[in-house]
């Protein structure tokens, strides 16, 4: 298998994930907008999943959906507010069940712990199931550097690995790739015969990976939840590769962010009712594994050693800021990505992070520094679709605004201040408002050049239309139409 010396790069020549220096989402988004096939693939997939989520939640919970989302949010918020307590309890119970718990303050430490265990066990081949945190820590290159062959086993991640690409969605990692690119990669990297049939491509990957499971001496996974009352690790997967990685090899290491705690099973069940429905429209993922320690003495199989690496890597910093703390409640369902009009257009790689979409626009700056990602909080129309979609009721728009506020060091320009002053007057009385609205309508028509939207505003306003178009107001105002229909106006 090809071993990339450098991480795969994006259209701007920078690594797809975690570009060096200051990342600007705009140049990438600009180029992805031109890519018709990418646009239609992402549009289709996200629209379908977004609709599926609405439908199944409605079917399962009827009109209680919003109340249920807010309870789920409360469960996560309560846990995060008392995270020290629940982590301590979890560690105690997990160790009692025979799990070896490791604590990593940052990325380097997390990677070092994993590589050390692998070295100690003399690991040659490692099979890995999907884990966002290990993408975040860049674990793979570290393992490869230590001479350990590491194979991603989730179909999408496997394809991405052999095609030297990077995931662009937290649930549908290869949403940006088409079957042709998979076919070519399989011919090139696996020596397979060319086929574009997803069914056959899947079979090829299946056979290839089965051989790996059998030979692997280490399995690495992420974790969706940690249950404090029992010290369990919970994994939600669909393909079965996660089960292989945690059952077949003699050693299992799970790399998990500290925010994954839930107090008790009843809380777990509550959140599980929402996770898969919000992610893919399934009632539950095909496999929900509750793992509590390594194989017991009389167990017929399972790993002899189970390790869990709890990763902080910037999370306590987020915890310390009450403004942003709730972002740690995210259960990584991807619903906010699917619902987001900006994600759908800009697409995942534009964000330059494993976490894209609205949640990525919030936590990437928080985890890596706003100074390195100043444009991410701007990547939102603040329409609120993400907030409405979020199963744990995270107020993403509020945090996006708070982050924007942090990037504004200066007061507005004279022009901006004058415009706001004018607006204050316009909104102060009914008459002024009507007058301002009619001028507004007139001017927009003049500048739009007969088109239905304003694409380039004149003079100092041109900055505003550089990244957006403005749809023109109707030619007749609501008030006028109302009056024409005989409606009364106060």
């Amino acid at each position: 298998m090809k071993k990339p010396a450098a991480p795969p790069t994006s259209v701007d020549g920078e690594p797809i994930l975690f570009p060096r220096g200051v990342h600007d989402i705009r140049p990438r988004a600009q180029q992805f907008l031109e890519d018709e096939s990418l646009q239609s693939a992402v549009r289709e997939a996200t629209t379908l999943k977004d609709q599926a989520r609405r439908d199944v939640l409605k079917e399962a919970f009827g009109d209680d959906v919003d109340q249920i989302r807010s309870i789920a949010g409360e469960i996560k918020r309560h846990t995060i507010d008392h995270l020290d307590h629940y982590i301590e309890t979890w560690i105690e119970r997990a160790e009692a069940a025979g799990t070896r718990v490791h604590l990593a303050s940052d990325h380097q430490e997390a990677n070092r712990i994993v590589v050390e265990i692998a070295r100690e066990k003399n690991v040659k081949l490692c099979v890995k199931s999907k884990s966002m945190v290990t993408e975040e820590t860049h674990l793979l290159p570290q393992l490869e550097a230590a001479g350990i062959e590491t194979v991603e086993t989730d179909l999408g991640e496997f394809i991405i690995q052999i095609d030297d690409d990077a995931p662009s969605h937290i649930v549908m990692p290869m949403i940006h790739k088409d079957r042709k690119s998979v076919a070519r990669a399989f011919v090139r990297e696996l020596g397979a015969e060319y086929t574009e049939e997803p069914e056959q491509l899947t079979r090829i990957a299946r056979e290839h990976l089965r051989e790996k499971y059998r030979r692997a001496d280490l399995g690495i996974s992420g974790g969706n939840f940690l249950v404090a009352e029992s010290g369990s690790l919970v994994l939600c997967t669909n393909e079965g590769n996660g089960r292989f990685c945690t059952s077949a090899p003699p050693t299992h290491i799970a790399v998990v962010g500290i925010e994954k705690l839930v107090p008790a099973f009843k809380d777990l069940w509550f959140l599980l009712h929402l996770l898969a429905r919000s992610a893919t429209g399934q009632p539950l993922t095909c496999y929900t594994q509750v793992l509590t320690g390594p194989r017991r003495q009389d167990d017929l199989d399972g790993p002899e050693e189970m390790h869990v690496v709890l990763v902080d890597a910037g999370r306590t910093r987020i915890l310390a800021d009450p403004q942003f703390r709730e972002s740690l409640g995210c259960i990584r369902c991807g619903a906010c990505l699917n619902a987001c009009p900006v994600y759908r257009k800009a697409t995942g790689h534009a964000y330059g992070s494993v976490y894209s979409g609205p949640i990525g626009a919030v936590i990437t700056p928080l985890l890596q520094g706003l100074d390195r990602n100043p444009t991410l909080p701007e990547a939102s129309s603040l329409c609120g679709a993400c907030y409405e979609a979020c199963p744990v009721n995270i107020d993403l728009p509020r945090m996006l605004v708070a982050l924007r506020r942090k990037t504004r060091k200066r007061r507005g320009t004279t022009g901006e201040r004058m415009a706001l002053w004018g607006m204050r007057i316009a909104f102060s009385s009914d008459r002024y408002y009507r007058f301002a609205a009619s001028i507004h309508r007139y001017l927009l028509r003049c500048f739009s050049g007969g088109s239905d939207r304003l694409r380039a505003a004149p003079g100092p306003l041109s900055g505003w239309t550089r990244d957006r178009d403005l749809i023109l107001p109707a030619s007749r105002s609501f008030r006028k139409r109302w009056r024409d229909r005989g409606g009364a106006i106060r």
Partner: protein
Amino acid sequence: MKGTAKNIFLDRIRAALGRSPGQSVDPLVVDHDMVRPSLPGSGDERENLRALFVDRARAVGMDVLICPRAEVAKVAVNFLTEAAITSVQISNDPIIEQELVEKMNESSIRVAREGVELDVLYQEIECGITMAKAAVASTGSVVVTGSDQESRLTSLVPPNHLVLLADSRIVEDLLDLSISPEDLPSCMTLVTGPSKTADIEGVLITGVHGPGRVQIVLYHG
């Protein structure tokens, strides 16, 4: 894990939260029952639970056959013969196994017990047979475990998975699963459908790594 490292780690979290070691936790008071689905139908509750389970299990792509307990072996073997399955691995659960093994022998299906060579398991066994420890009606899930009677791989490696489920083990919702935190098996898996992926252009494909076919034999009495 060394105590000091743990304390430093936890202290940092406490500092971020403004909490002190051992500080108590206000109880979390929320209405967990809100997520319960409403059970359709009226009358016999068992009957309704079973109907709901069958409906939901089928909806997620698992097949369900229903029979009285006395006919489990017959129904299971029928399924195996119809699917042209000639070799199975069976978990050590003693409940129905004796009769089932006899019937399979009669139909010249090769029966392997737990603990066969991995080569055999990966290459020859066409179906793993396990007992469901429980089932959840609202999600259509069956619960299998890794234990001293059942390996994790039996329900994972072969392309078919046959699950025997006693109808008394169906609970209404996840919240009703009886779990004692001190006494969990090392691995408990809720199976809600055959192994699936939609990674390539969203095309749904079953049987990626795990079994592509899950057959449930639901028995009563």
